[in-house]
Every structure is written in structure tokens, then in C-alpha cells.
């Protein structure tokens, strides 16, 4: 029995998600950038996602939070269309995920920095820009956005880990996609950089882009417009932070998550 996700804003109530589904479908056409229904993904012998229903509103900064191994990366791979899906549907911008027309519109940053270490920052971006068919200014803008302008001519192998992951992020920005899927982009970065990156994500969302950021650090919840809490491949909650606090009676994100986990375990 899957735990029921929390969707209703009224405090303390748990609405079975079936009741919410028809309504979700209607609004999905207009306001949801990403819609998943009954998504099942198997990796090897393990079923990672067990019939997930999900709506990511467009133009918002949405945090996908959950512990390691909860299925965040798998869900993100499914959204960008590089994951083989067992059953269920997943649509991005109203088109099935992985459709060729989406390759220009969705930016993706994998957990490990996926750039060419033997090229300079600028050479990396120029290559991905020409694959996406964007102009030269986009390269400079993307480097500027991640604050690496002074390292533009430096080879990525000479950069620190945090700088390398920012190069990877810049590559996702260079195509100026409508939907950005970022897998733990702030892990291992210092507090100042984390703050700056979250400010960048907020600016992108304010620019009407949908930004889905995963993290296993619950505190990062405070920086998101909306939260998706994932655990063992099930969606525990789809809420805003104030709603989450109200519902759980907790006053920090970690505690709120623990409360939710305990509740769903009791519900089982």
C-alpha cells in the first residue's frame, strides 16, 4: 500500500490522491510543466518508482527532496527522457518525456558534473551551444550566471569540485531551456555559493522557467516555492513549506520530513 501524498492545504488532513487526480488532470493542461501518472520505473531487479503521480507547476522553483536512494535521480532521468520506463506516463510541457521536440526545451544537470575535463570552460559551453544551435552571447551569459567569467579560459580539470559542478550547470543554462532539471547541484558547495546558486534558481523561476532541483539536504526546502518529498520511490507530500510546517507541527524541514515518514508508517 502506497502512502497517500498530502495535497490538501487544510491542516492535518490526508486526502487520498485518487480524489485529487481528476482535478489535477484538468489543471495540468495549463499550469503544470511536468505531469506524471502511475509512473513505474525499474532499475535492475529493484522497482525504484512505484506508480508515482506528480505535478510540477510551471514557472516555479520546485524542490525534490528526499534521502539518498529515494528515487530522485531516477525520477529526473525519467523527466528528461533518458530513463526506460516500465509503465505509466510522464509528460513535460504537454509532450511525452523524451520527445525530440523537448530536447531544446529541457535542460538537465546530472549529479556528477558531466562536462569535458580536458576542455576549458568556454570550449565546453561553445560545444553544447552549437549542439543546441544557440548564439555566442548565450555562452558568455551562462558563464556569467554561474560566476565563472574569470575562469572562462581555464581548463575544467584545473577547477575545484564546486567550480566544476557550476560549469555543468552553465551547460544546462546555455540553451535557455523552459524547464531545468537539476540533480543535486548544490551538494558539496560552500554556504556562500549555495546561497548564490539558489538566488540564481529563483531568478530563473521568476523569468517564467520551471526549475526542479533535487537535494537530500532538507534545509534547502526553505528556498523553494514548492516541495516534493520523496521516500523509497513514493511521494510523501506535494506542498509549500508553510503548509508542510502547519501540517506536521514541525518548525524545521528535517523534523517535518521525519514526522511525515512516521505518519505514513503508522498509516501502513
Amino acid at each position, binding site marked *: 500500500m502506497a502512502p497517500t501524498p498530502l495535497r490538501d492545504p487544510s491542516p492535518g488532513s490526508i486526502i487520498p490522491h485518487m480524489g485529487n487526480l481528476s482535478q489535477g488532470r484538468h489543471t495540468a493542461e495549463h499550469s503544470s510543466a511536468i505531469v506524471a501518472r502511475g509512473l513505474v520505473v*525499474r*532499475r*535492475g531487479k529493484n522497482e525504484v518508482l512505484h506508480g508515482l503521480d506528480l505535478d510540477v507547476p510551471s514557472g516555479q522553483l520546485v524542490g525534490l527532496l528526499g534521502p539518498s536512494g529515494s528515487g530522485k535521480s531516477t525520477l529526473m532521468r525519467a523527466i*528528461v*527522457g*533518458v*530513463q*526506460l520506463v516500465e509503465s505509466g506516463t510522464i509528460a513535460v510541457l504537454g509532450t511525452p518525456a*523524451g520527445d*525530440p521536440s523537448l*530536447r*531544446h526545451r*529541457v535542460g*538537465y544537470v*546530472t549529479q*556528477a*558534473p*558531466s*562536462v*569535458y*575535463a*580536458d*576542455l576549458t570552460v568556454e*570550449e565546453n559551453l561553445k*560545444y*553544447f551551444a*552549437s*549542439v*543546441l*544551435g544557440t548564439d555566442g552571447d548565450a555562452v558568455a551569459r551562462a558563464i556569467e550566471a554561474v560566476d565563472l567569467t574569470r575562469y572562462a579560459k581555464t*581548463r575544467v580539470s584545473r577547477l575545484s569540485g564546486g567550480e566544476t559542478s557550476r560549469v555543468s550547470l552553465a*551547460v544546462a543554462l546555455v*540553451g535557455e531551456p523552459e524547464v531545468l532539471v537539476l540533480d543535486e547541484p548544490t551538494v558539496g558547495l560552500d554556504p556562500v555559493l549555495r546561497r548564490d546558486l539558489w538566488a540564481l534558481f529563483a531568478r530563473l523561476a521568476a523569468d517564467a522557467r520551471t526549475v526542479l532541483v533535487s537535494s537530500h539536504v532538507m534545509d534547502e526546502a526553505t528556498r523553494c516555492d514548492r516541495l516534493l518529498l520523496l521516500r523509497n520511490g513514493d511521494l510523501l507530500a506535494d506542498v509549500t513549506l508553510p503548509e508542510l510546517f502547519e501540517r506536521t507541527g514541525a518548525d524545521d524541514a528535517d523534523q517535518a520530513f521525519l514526522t511525515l515518514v512516521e505518519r505514513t508508517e503508522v498509516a501502513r
Partner: protein
Amino acid sequence: MNVHRTLATSARVLRQLRHDPRTLVLLMGLPCLLLWLIAWMFEGTRVLDQFGPLLLGVFPLIVMFLVTSVATLRERKSGTLERLMASPLGKVDFVLGYGLAFGLVATIQAVVVTTFSVGALGMDMPGPLWAIIMVAALVALVGTSLGLVASAFASTEFQAVQFMPAIIFPQLIVCGLVMPREQMPAALEAISRAMPLTYGVQAMKDLSMSGDPGQIWSEVAVLVAFIVGAIVLGSLTLRRRTA
């Protein structure tokens, strides 16, 4: 297929190589060194004239196979391939991009090694230079496309390197370098016909015997067919979606 994206990929691969001067020196210098060793060992004999041209056809296969399988494996491991597969880049663009970049490197290698062998070592080669370089470049493309295919079946660098003896050595043994193919047992001779290197070595042999490049066209045609087949196969091994 998209010409712009294919060329962008080639340019990127070449840029990576440019940042790696040691590999470039090894690519160009090592075959020269090996041929010089042969010339030195068999000084005063015709061994260099007989085997030198055949080696010119063998080096590009080995080198480009290794370079490509390692480079592609790196793309798979580093996540850059996954990123490209989520981008508008076509699979054929990726494979052709690599093929063109390494084909160009192989052509330069052929120019350097041939010039060195003929100029400095005094190798006697009646065939025209352009024909030798063309055959060397085609063999290199065979190596590149086979390397792309092999990398799909390797999940570690150790495995990738092991594919060299698995895929290249059998070709070396039956290609006519070790023993003329006419003297081989019929079964081995038949196997040699299924191997691309056989045609590269045969073309080089023809060019070392006569100055007329007209007789190598059938071998060239077979090499091109192998390249096209391996590029198609290489593209098929790339998956947009993985488990």
C-alpha cells in the same frame, strides 16, 4: 543527421586532443620510431620495403581503435554522453563526429609516417603518396568505428583495453602480414576475407609492388563498406534511454 552538429562534435574532439600534446606526440612519433627500429635491424635488406608499407596500413587500425574506444567509454562514464543523448544531437552526428575527427588525425599520422619512412629511412614505395594516405585514413576509420562499437560492450577501462586483443589481434594474424594469405589453410584464408584489415594490408601491398593505384579500388570499396557498416552498428549501440 545534421552537418553543423557533426562538425561541432569533430571540432570538440580535436580540441580535446590539442589539449593533450603527449598523446599527439605518441600518435605521430611512435609509428616512426617502430619503423626506424625495423630499418635499423634489417639494414641492407629489402625487409623495410616489404613490411614498411604493410605496417603503414596496420598502425592506424590499432591506434584509432584504442583511442576511440577509450574516448567513447569516457563519454559514457562521465555522463557527457547521457547529456548529449538528452540534447538535439543525433546518434549519427555523434559517431560521424568522432569518425571525422579521428580520420583527420589518422590522415596527418599517415602523412608524417609515410614522409618519414620514404624520406628519412629510404623506404622504396612505388605507389603514389596520396593513395597510401587514403588507405591509411580508411583503415583508421575502420579502427574508429570498431572502437565505437566495442566501447558499447565495455563498462570499465580494463575491459575496453581487453577488446584490443579480442578484435584487433585476430585481424593482425590473418591479414597477410605474418604469412601470405595464399599459403594459409583454406579456412583461415576464408576468415581473413571477413576481416577489414585484410583489405587495408592488401591495398598497401599492391601499392608497394606497383606504382599504379588503379588496382586498389576494389579493396577501397570493401573498406568503405566496412566503415559504413560499423558506423551504423556504432550508432545502434548508442541508446537515448537506458535502464
